């Protein structure tokens, strides 16, 4: 008996020790890790793999190369489409910011009851299917749509709105505006009112207080709003599909076309990756403006 014990004890000692390390609080991260692995990491890896696979002419032979990327950059139309996508996304984001900031500011400054109503109003469109809303805009802007019908009353000749970028931009703004309002509203609501009082106490007029205290402190909210609008608008598929004619196809449509119509997965993946890199660069660039985020982090560390 005494000879067995020393052998068993160290084993038992080790096992629970190791198990506690994994099975404790960290177990809660398991669902997230699973999602991360199967829904984000693996797909991205697959896209990356496809993007670098060269068309070898045979299904048995896999050759890696930059062919798809070279083909994308080498086609001026693609670059034009990418540029147009980013331009429309930027315009829509700026309009969202210009509309959303005052709305968020006004909401954060009203009474608790009004705040609830105003946020409800801002988010209410999100309850309705996006396709439906976009299609409704199409009905308005269509050549035989309601806008032309109304303008016709005043003798304005029929305008082909869908041939312009305007319906797409309006569609993007209407769909993604809540994503700009919410983060800005959240940060403005959290803003310590004594900072505003302090600024006023030091002689700043309300307008000066806004530009010197409130606005700089709301930059983190603006940045997350920009990220949350810029990313989906740059890659949107449905909006240009319904709210513009083919000559205004955006990068999302291009990717879709490569996958669906041409079956050219490698090329489509390459375009996705280029788009991803460009957006990442944009977001990174935007975050450089956020001096306050650094300060806040430092504060949080204390």
């Amino acid at each position, binding site marked *: 008996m005494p000879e067995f014990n020393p052998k068993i004890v160290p084993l038992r000692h080790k096992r629970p020790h190791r198990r506690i390390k994994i099975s404790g609080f960290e177990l809660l991260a398991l669902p997230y890790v699973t999602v991360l692995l199967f829904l984000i990491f693996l797909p991205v890896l697959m896209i990356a793999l496809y993007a670098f696979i060269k068309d070898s002419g045979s299904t048995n032979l896999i050759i890696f190369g930059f062919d798809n990327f070279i083909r994308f950059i080498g086609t001026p139309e693609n670059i034009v489409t990418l540029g147009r996508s980013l331009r429309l996304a930027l315009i829509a984001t700026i309009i969202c910011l210009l509309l959303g900031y005052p709305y968020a500011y006004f909401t954060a400054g009203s009474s608790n009851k009004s705040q609830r109503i105003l946020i409800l109003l801002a988010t209410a469109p999100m309850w309705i299917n996006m396709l439906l809303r976009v299609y409704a805009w199409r009905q308005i802007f269509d050549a035989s749509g309601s806008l032309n019908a109304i303008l016709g009353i005043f003798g304005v000749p029929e305008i082909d709105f869908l041939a312009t970028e305007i319906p797409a931009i309006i569609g993007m703004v209407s769909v993604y505006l809540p994503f700009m309002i919410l983060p800005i509203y959240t940060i403005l609501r959290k803003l310590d009112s*004594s900072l505003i*009082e302090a600024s006023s106490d*030091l*002689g700043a007029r309300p307008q*000066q207080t806004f530009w010197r205290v409130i606005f700089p*402190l709301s930059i983190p909210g603006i940045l997350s709003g920009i990220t949350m609008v810029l990313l989906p608008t740059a890659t949107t598929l449905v909006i240009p599909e319904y709210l513009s004619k083919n000559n205004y196809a955006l990068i999302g449509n291009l990717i879709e076309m490569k996958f669906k119509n041409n079956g050219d997965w490698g090329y489509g993946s390459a375009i996705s990756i280029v788009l991803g890199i460009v957006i990442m660069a944009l977001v990174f660039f935007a975050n450089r403006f956020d001096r306050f985020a650094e*300060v*806040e982090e430092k504060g949080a560390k204390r």
Partner: protein
Amino acid sequence: MSLTQTPRKLAKSVKKERRPLIEIQGLTKEFDGSVVLKGMDLTIYENEFVTLLGPSGCGKTTTLRILGGFEEPTSGKIIFDGKEITTIRNYDLPTNTVFQRYALFPHLNVFENIAFGLRIKQKNATGWRNRLKKLLKRPNVAVDFGFTEEIIAGKVKRMLKLVNLEGYEQRSVTSLSGGQQQRVAIARALINEPKVLLLDEPLGALDLKLRQEMQYELKDIQINTGITFIFVTHDQEEALTMSDKIVIMKEGEIQQVGTPEDVYNEPINEYVAKFIGESNIIDGTMLRDYLVSFDGQEFECVDRGFSDNEAVDVVIRPEDLDIVEPSEGLITGVVDSVIFKGVHFEIDVKTSERIYTVHTTDQSPEGKKVGLRFNPEDLHVMEKMTYAGV
């Protein structure tokens, strides 16, 4: 009320020779139907360190916020330097505030936090409206448009020196300790050279040691700058240490205004006596001037002006009571409990009528028969309070 005040009122009117800076007249404030201030009258003089003292909900912070222009009174007037300022917005007031939680701007460093007020002044002076105004007045004269960068830097440097934070210009305010943030807040307020500095429980968030240090520093700063300080606190020790004048408030009304010595030694009623420190408060009868009776005995005192045989409260501060041999005492009793408090012992002495609390540096064993002694000037006779509860 007037009866008890007669001797003190005379003494105070002699002191009042300075110029009144702020006159608060009949200040009333209601929030959603509940009255927070009930017609407050107060005069504050130049270079005074005035403390508004009272428990939370007594209206002291509301008073300060009205003075700072953050709230408008429901009725009443505030006259500042001869001009009425009751409805003037806070950004136009010659007051600056040190907030309870400092309210430093987290996106600005120490230098820019302190320079904030000057930058606003600079901006206002160089703004197009002001330029236009000056240009129309004297088109040919080059005018000085406020502070240059050097002047601002110099002023900030001087302020940092005043609050002992030299070399901290570029630090982020969020990296500072509570005490350091407090100093930045004071510097930020003082750089505008206000006539009055309002301080809303500014030491509340600091630990005891730091709080005591800051009390002396604040007093020094007040003396050095000659600015009137209006300080709000619920801490009687803070009030006694720093103030020239203490205003004790309760439920929106002023109970007593006086120097720290006044309110400590001559509390006007039981509420003030209890709030301003530990006390033995005894029911008594004022037999006639200079003679009071309580616990079935008669004692000499220094108070006068009550009606004969008026019921009064008598206050004896614990440190004014001496424990002596039973034969030498004015009252005799038995030591009931002894608690060591660091600097002194807190000893409860049980007499036939009540328990007296005594603060003394000499220990007495529990159960010992002792006498209690006090001098006539240690008895503070007050009019009885008429309202319920304290």
